[in-house]
């Protein structure tokens, strides 16, 4: 099995799924990301990332109930899997360890 990889945007979405635990679905992820990043995103980018994450096994999904404001369509909720969590952990570790190696640099 090839080395699992995680793109930058995917990592953000995965983090957001984890953060919004059990309340994460397309629109909530989008809105939170927009808020944190302070820039506009397109919903399709979020969906593409979610599909890829699901394919890689980092998230799993379930359908929620039907709500009126969605034109009778169900919400699809995402939860992070153990594999996803481990991926995040290893990414975090990698980044922190690398960060720690940065010598003290002063930029005046």
């Amino acid at each position, binding site marked *: 099995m090839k080395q699992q990889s995680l793109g930058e945007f995917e990592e953000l979405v995965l983090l957001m799924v984890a953060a919004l635990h059990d309340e994460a679905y397309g629109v909530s992820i*989008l809105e939170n990301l927009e808020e944190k990043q302070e820039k506009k995103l397109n919903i399709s980018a979020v*969906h593409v990332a979610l599909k890829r994450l699901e394919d890689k096994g980092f998230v799993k999904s379930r359908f929620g109930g039907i709500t009126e404001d*969605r034109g009778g369509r169900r919400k699809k909720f995402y939860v992070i899997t153990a594999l996803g969590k481990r991926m995040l952990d290893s990414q975090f570790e990698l980044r922190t360890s690398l960060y720690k190696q940065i010598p003290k640099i002063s930029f005046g």
Partner: protein
Amino acid sequence: MIQPPKRSLAFLRWFCREDYLDEIEGDLTELFYKNMNESPRKAQWIFMWSVLKYFRPEFIKSFRNYHSTNSLPMLRNYFKIAMRNLVKHYGYSFINIAGLASGMAVALLVGLWVFDELSFNTYFKNYDRIAQVTKGGTFEGKYRQGQDYIPYPLITELQTTYRQNFKHVVPVAWAGGFEAVLSSEGKRLSRRGLYVGEDAPEMFSFEMTFGAWAGLNELHGIMISESTSKAFFGDADPLGKAMKVNNDVEVTVTGVFKDFPRNTEFHGLQFFQPWKFLEKDASWITSKGWDDHFLFLYVQVADSKSVEEVAAAIKKAEMIAIKDLDYMKNELQYDYDILLHPMSKWHLYSNYKEGLLQNGPIQFVWFIGAIGVFVLVLACINFMNLSTARSEKRAKEVGIRKTIGSARKQLIVQFFSESFLVVLFAFAACLLIVFVALPGFNQLSAKAIEMPLDQSWFWVSSLAFILLTGCLAGSYPAFYLSSFKPVSVLKGTFRAGRYASIPRKTLVVMQFSVSVMLIICTAVIYQQLEFVKSRPVGYDREGLLIMRKKSGEFDTKRDALWAELKKTGVVASVGESGGDLSGTWSHNGGFNWEGKDPSFEANFATLNVSHEFGKTVGWQFIDGRDFSRDIASDSAGIVLNEAAVEYMKLQDPVGKTVRWTNRAWGVDQDFRIVGIVKDMIMNSPFEPVKPAVFFTYGYEGVLLIRIAPGVSAGAALPKIEKVFTSMMPEIPFDYRFADQQFAAKFANEERIGKLAAVFATLAIFISCLGLFGLASFVAEQRIKEIGIRKVLGASVANLWRMLSQQFVLLVLISCCIAIPLAYYVLSNGLKNYEYHTDINWLTFASAAIGALIITLLTVSFQAVKAAVMNPVKSLRSE
């Protein structure tokens, strides 16, 4: 409230994968409503833009397999099951396919025949533009039409005054063709030909092998058929070769045309000579007036005009032309019309009776066509019957298929595909049957029909035919079988019930009604034939030879020839007459006698005969005596037939005088009645004999030879031939027998009889096949019941009765339906014949009894088989 953009949404729904649609559409909609609060326009724009962004491989559904709902394997399964069923019940399958195949074969043959009849004369390219000029008029207060002989001046009139209406005006002599001896390069052949107008080849679109359409412009030219050319010159180009007609007229071959096919007016015509030549050679015709009708005239209307327009334009042509002619004064009262009879009606709409168009031939075509359809329907009924009868066996299968999830629609498709399979097999068998039967059928129907296997329309119509038959035959089982309720079928409580067999019984009744009707019709047609054949003909047909006098030598060497013939010892007498014995060709008015009602315009068949004619043909005198050469006054004597005496209402006619005035014949004198003969049947034997006058006056064109009694024709012919070949070596010895000519008059009716007999036999055969299948099915179904009955002491006879009686009842009902129908049809049909048999109730009774016997035989085979079976065997299982 504003909705998300509809088009974008539809687009999304169209391309998006089903499993993602909920999420994507839901999220988009939710966002849309949120954005709406800011700006509806922006919300819409974002929505649309987003939808477009989803148009990428991850989200697009697979269109490749979208429409295939796996129908092919399902169909394959249907056919597999169908094949297994066919093979498993090979007996039923055979009955089914054989019955259907013979029904289809009949329908196909009839179809080809009808097509051939309807396409008569379409060989001619100008089919739609050609018409025959005929006459009509008011006689004795009644309008009559259908006179196809026209007078000579009419030709000139149409060619000059009315020229602009026509592209071609083609006169024809002598109608129906005349026989002549053609000779060239030492060969001599007797051929039938016509004198025709020079435009004929173009008008009738001759297919030329050699030469051009203009070939008849040559005064001494002759166009010959390909077969004639082959017979004389082989494959060589015969253009410019010299030829002699009747060993007298020298002509040059100026064209060779392809022989006309059988279903054309000109079939059998082997040569054409130009009209101009006839006018020069027989110049007397040009001096004939409006009162002498002896020519045929064909026209092709001008390209710019319709046939109706031209017909209207020339309608009064004759009346306008003759109104100032002195000799036609008396005829003005008839108010003649000149009519156009279009080519499309020559063949099927040409039967006139009492001057009114009858629906004779076309009616016959539809009659045969209807029989074809009937036989096909019979075969389809068989198919339906057997399939529904076996439905109980298939009921479990239907139940299981339904429980597994078959929709009713699928079951319908299944049963249709099954019936199409059978129909396909049957069609293959039918093609084979038709292929084998076609030569015989052609002989029977006097046609030259070929299987049009290379024509696309044949295959297209065959396909339509298969579809139609498949639907017709498969519809009932498909809708009936698929309607079963799975629960009741599988629980075993399913019983076809009392009413399930009612449609089946109705179908059997229909089948037998049609069959019994066909049997009765055939029987009556044969009775009618026998009745007419046994009608007294008034002369002796046996051993009477008829020869056309094809050369002047018959007259110049007459005495020597007759003496030589008698010297052979095999000839009893020799005579001559103006026309053949097979018809009265000349009819004239202008007769007056004492006691005649002045307003009565009497019309007689006029026959000029030699003094020896009566002795030679053997006519029978009722009163008076025969002509005699010894009595000089007999040149002004006449013999009448019985019909004429009755027509004239004469008492004691012999010795009375009749005055005959006729310009065309150039007579105006008294004739004395010397004798009365029994009616001789010369025209159609189905019609009353025409009043006829015989006299020894005029030109005799036919030689009659009576073979001595007790001498066989086979022994006499060589001796007679020797006399002719030695005395007239240039003329081929060409003769006909009177009895054969007479028999030919029945050809049409005999053909109807034979065709009807064949169809009736097939109809009965198919019906019996069906009955056989049904009976075996019923026997099989009741096998346990029969076993129990036997154990309880029923005899074989009891059981046989039990199994047969319901079928007998059905056939009895059919007879009750068929007999009144047949009576109605036949009494109408027989009215067409003036001389006809009465319908005998015995015919009906025997047809009904016949049908019953056949039914009993068919059913009994199965019934007895079931009844003699050992009950142990049938009861042991379960």
